[in-house]
């Protein structure tokens, strides 16, 4: 294995933020063969001789690698340059197109993202009614085969909008979308046909769209439904119930508070709209997006954070700070951490492998000099993907060092 961890490693002296709410001060975290085999508070029983490499980072903080769902990272390099955009395929219903094969492990953006602690991404197609199928990647690897953590994990539906957008003289008016019911029906029809197809024991002609839906009906592929407005959410939830969607996830869900009871009752988790966004409505509390995580947690809705929005690929490196802002606005700090680690892993269906610092899981983790959720203190000293220490350098760091040298200055 090209990515294999070569030497068993023990990190000692850090405050371990497990990702499940627990914090262990002065902890020891051991891992070998890519997997964590020890997470404990340091005491006399600790046998450091079992590990080939000992890393002492006293007073620093360890975290499970952060997870960024619903992201075009690896698919889009430069937003404005069409040649570098691979996220949006032609066609309205295209579950068969897969981010897997377009994911660029050598994106120059990736190193800038992992140096802030984000180590896993769900690389996700965009656009249309059913955008395509996402896959989940470690942010380290020689190629997509090598980097993929979970292949073809979910299809992504952009729920029909109850409003149509109209621009006029700088004012955007959202008028009733009179096609809403028809558009929902189109989805229902597609699901019904796909399901009928998959039940058939003799297939006359192969339909790639329907083929892509097979694992959806067996529950092996999740269904991410992107919607924000209360009416859209409630209509999407109805669809989930009616179509007996096995692994549904709502994405965006700005109005989730209004349907919180349904989300709890039907155990539908939410990939919440970007925290660092403006409120969707003029009348909303100015910090509503900051507060939503805390308010949803209070209602018992399971959620994780994401950075969908403008400049999302490059903005992935700010994901930790969304959790920080949530913590600043009423969410317990370790709960906030969950929203980019364990809860994200659970919602994406990768919690058996990653998402927390627990024995048996992959050693995808990092150490920061201070609180990683605060930009003031987020400063990585080491990061590991499946036990392998990764380079925290980047194209940006290189330029920094080169030009500091130009001016005769010492890089930090």
């Amino acid at each position, binding site marked *: 294995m090209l990515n294999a961890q070569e030497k068993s490693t023990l990190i000692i002296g850090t405050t371990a933020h497990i990702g499940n709410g627990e914090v262990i001060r002065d902890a020891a975290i051991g891992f070998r063969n890519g997997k964590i085999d020890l997470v404990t508070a340091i005491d006399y029983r600790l046998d450091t001789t079992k590990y080939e490499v000992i890393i002492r980072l006293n007073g620093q903080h360890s975290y499970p690698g952060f997870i960024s769902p619903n992201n075009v990272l690896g698919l889009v*390099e*430069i*937003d*404005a*340059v069409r040649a570098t955009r691979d996220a949006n395929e032609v066609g309205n219903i295209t579950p068969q197109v897969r981010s897997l094969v377009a994911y660029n492990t050598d994106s*120059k*953006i990736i190193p*800038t993202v992992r140096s802030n602690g984000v180590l896993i991404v769900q690389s996700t197609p965009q656009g249309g009614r059913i955008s395509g199928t996402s896959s989940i990647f470690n942010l380290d690897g020689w190629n997509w085969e090598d980097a993929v953590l979970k292949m073809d994990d979910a299809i992504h539906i952009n729920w029909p909008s109850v*409003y149509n957008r109209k*621009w006029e*003289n*700088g*004012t*955007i*008016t*959202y*008028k*009733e979308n009179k096609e809403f019911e028809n558009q929902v029906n189109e989805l229902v029809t597609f699901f019904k046909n796909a399901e009928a197809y998959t039940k058939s024991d003799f297939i006359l002609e192969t339909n790639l769209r329907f083929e892509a839906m097979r694992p959806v009906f067996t529950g092996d592929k999740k269904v991410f439904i992107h919607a924000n*407005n*209360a*009416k859209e959410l*409630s209509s999407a939830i109805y669809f989930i119930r009616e179509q007996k969607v096995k692994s549904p996830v709502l994405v965006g869900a700005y*109005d989730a508070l*209004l349907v919180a009871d349904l989300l709890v009752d039907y155990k539908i988790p939410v990939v919440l709209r970007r925290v*660092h*966004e*403006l*409120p969707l*409505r*003029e*009348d909303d*509390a*100015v*910090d509503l997006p900051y507060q939503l995580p805390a308010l949803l947690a209070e209602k018992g809705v399971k959620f994780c954070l994401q950075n969908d929005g*403008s*400049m999302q*690929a*490059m903005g992935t490196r*700010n994901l930790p*700070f969304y959790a*920080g*802002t949530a*913590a*600043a*606005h009423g969410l317990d700090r370790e709960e906030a951490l969950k929203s980019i680690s364990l809860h994200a892993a659970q919602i994406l269906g990768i919690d058996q492998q990653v998402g927390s610092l627990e024995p048996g899981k992959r050693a995808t983790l990092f150490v920061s000099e201070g609180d990683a*959720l*605060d*930009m*003031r203190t*987020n*400063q990585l000293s080491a990061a590991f993907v499946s036990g392998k220490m990764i380079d925290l350098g980047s194209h*940006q*760091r290189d*330029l*920094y060092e080169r*030009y*500091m040298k130009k*001016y005769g*200055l010492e890089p*930090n």
Partner: protein
Amino acid sequence: MRFISLFILLLVAEVFQAQGTFPVNGNRNPNNNSIVFKNATITKSPDEVINNGTLIIKNGRVESVGVNIPIPLSSVVYDLNGAYIYHSFIDPFSSYGMPEVPKSPWSSNPQIASKKEGAYNWNEAVKAELNAAELFSRNQKVAETFLKNGFGLGIVHQKDGIFRGTAALVSFDGGSDNEALKQREVYTAYSFDKGSSRQDYPSSLMGIIALMRQTHYDAEWYKTANRNKEVNLTLERVNQTSALPKLIDVGDYLSIYRADKIAREFGFQFIMKGNGDEYLRAADFAKKEIQMVIPLNFPNAYDVTDPYDAINVSLSEMKHWEMAPFNAAILDQNGISFTFTADGLEKPDQFLPNWRKAIEAGLPKEKALAALTTNVAKLFLLNDIDGTIQKGKPANFFISSAPIYDKEAVIYEQWVNGNQRVFKNRSIIDVRGEYNLNVNGNQQFELSVKGAVDKLEASVKGGDSTTKATLELKGNQITLSFKSKSSKDILRLSGHISEAKSRIWTGNAQLSNGEWVKWGAIKKADFVDKKKKDSTQALPLTKGSIWFPNMAFGDTAIPQQRSMIIRNATVWTNEDKGILKETDVLVVDGKIVHVGPKLDLSIIYPRRMPEIIEVEAKGMHLTPGIIDEHSHIAISRGVNESGQANSAEVSIGNVVNSNDINIYRQLSGGVTTSQLLHGSANPIGGQSALIKLKWGTTPDEMNIDSAKGHIKFALGENVKQSNWGDSKTERFPQTRMGVEQKFYDDFFRAKEYGDNWKLYNSKNSRDKKLATAPRRDLELDALVEILNEERFITCHSYVQSEINMLMHVADSMGFKINTFTHILEGYKVADKMKEHGAYGSTFSDWWAYKFEVNDAIPYNGAIMHKVGVTTGFNSDDAEMGRRLNQEAAKAVKYGGVSEIEALKFVTLNPAKMLQLDHRIGSIKEGKDADLVLWTAHPLSIYARVNKTIIEGTVYYDVERDALLRKQVGEERERLVQKMLAAKKGGAKTKRPEKREKELYECDTTEDEGYENN
């Protein structure tokens, strides 16, 4: 003597009136009879009503009006039986009779020059040559809708373009175009809408304003200039019509301020045609003595039955819905003179109901009437018409069944220039009642006639059965048919009413066998109008409160400046003293007065202590207000004037929108000052607005008046239009090579222009008269200001080559680049920037959104700072603008800038860039008290704003914010209930819609709605 001459004139007028140029086909039909209306309640003028009056007209003019006046022998006399006479309404803002404005299809291809053929203006949206009198042609169908609703006359013009030419007074009556045209030139019309023009310039409101100003300067210059170069029929027309009143269609109330400024610059006054929201700042407009034309197009209530729909309707729209009918009353209470227009109504039939609503809302009746008659005449200096019914004036009036203010009033007839147009027969006989009907002497029925006078419903009872009957009344002729009980055949009766009281009907009927028989009916009981409980009874109007601004998070009063002492805070001074722990800051009259530990007010004020509020800030951090060097919030209709490569003449200062919720949102993040920049669509952009975020005040109050001028320049992909689509390849420049030459050319031009003015201004007054003044050029004015160090450049820039280039251009042309903004490759040329003396205002960590930011690095700020460039972080983004403290923290994270210096990135350093560091940017005695109180270390993500203070006024307070949220919720719920009640009461409703202001970024180009990051 005066009387006699007037008399002669009148005689002469009569002689002329009888003549005309048009040949008559057939025999002439002169009619010099008088027409007399007696027994009428005549409203001669809004202030004078005569009961039981008589009106005599002759040859289209009023002969006399009064009580008991003699009636000439040759008179046709109408007895109005107490009906009402009013002067015909005059609509001052109509496009009746104007040709349809041709719509050219939208195209993504640029249109740089005008497509109008002829020797007209360079810009197609300047249509001063339009002449409504020449364009006018009657349209009977449209005229009817006006006449029916009380209007006899209209001032009409072609509603197209920024300069719309002259408006003409026309009447809506029949006859010919020649007769209908009453006054050729009434006013010249303007608007803030470029209309059908597809020419690229202007693409924004600020461009429209600049073009309006420049055209006025051009017209002035054209008068004196040597015309060898060009004949410009448009400008000639501007000059020929300059004495006429000027009316401008402004759109929203903020544009009244904008138009007023233009008018003052050129020494005239605009009459403002508003959109119905002028009540929001009525007191201001009264002070400015603004006269208005206002519409009565009150918005319908939203159907808020479904709460999921209702959440999308903003409070501001709901509040406006409630207040719109009160607009006129509030303007009147403020002493503003206005007139009404039917313009903007979906249906003309809504006019009178809405006009009555305005009266119900408190507008005195006589004012309401004056706003359609005498005020119109006065405001627009009409020649022959003064809006009153009096001797010698044209006979323009209508007759209604009841006072026109009453809901029940029916307009019978409209008389315009003495020509009658009947809508309802005023002598209609009320036949309603119960009758005994006898057919052929042997068949007895009971006939019941109900319904409205002009829409009868009849039924016939014979024996036990009752059948519906068809009853028609024309004059006194009756047609009645029904099924008789005895046969299945239909009985058909025809006859007449024998007298006006409709006691007896008689006539002949034809039976089904063809036999003719006699019939008759005798009234046994009069109709009793059992007033049906009107289920659609409108609810009484009730007023809400006006908030400042009138939307969520506004309030009935804006916060007031207070003297205060902030105690025991950790104070980030941004001065040599650095961070002071447990320190007090005293603020008096908007200024910082003292900074120090444990300030003793009794020592500072040994004699009389002013009222000073104590603010306990133990455990909290106090910093200077955050300053955003690069913001695009609070801008109306366009951040880019992208129509030309140089738009130095436009100014964001003209289009500040004080109602943008993002002002309040920025306050919640500690921002106190923002530079509102023009976008980056062109190498030389527009002038900036420097504002303090005084939420609830007007754009003028937000404007920092002591600030020097600033202007936006731009380089790179946006000015090359690289990411605007493949059709955008025409406008120069399309390469970085062209950008350099554009700058050189424009600055050479500016130098020559400046020299010409200098030469002209150096002449003595006699020589000046002989010489022609150079043409005033607003674009070059701005560049000359740059050369004179009176205006400061903020240049949008990305890659090192172009940054270097511009500094060379500047050095060789003798000006300076004040600030490079974005400046993402500033780290590559920081040494050169330092040498040039430029500031660097960058993003903390943005990159990868376009090709030119490929080498953008988050360490940029740190490197520039360490090399010695005064460095700042800006937002360019309404969302990030409220987290600039966190962005500053990234200067610590990426590159290790010290925390004290990092905070300066968003406070003191941008203050320097705005040339305002003598007033803001640090906590120092004598500076403006623009302060932010934070709950934690201000660079930490856990810090939240407790208070944002601007000049001693707390514009954001976390506790007050909680109250405002509650207030927003309560006000919404109140209005939702009111809308539901309105719906239940039968009011029309519309489906909920959500509206929001477009968020601008550097390269949002307004005309095409492109959005590229």
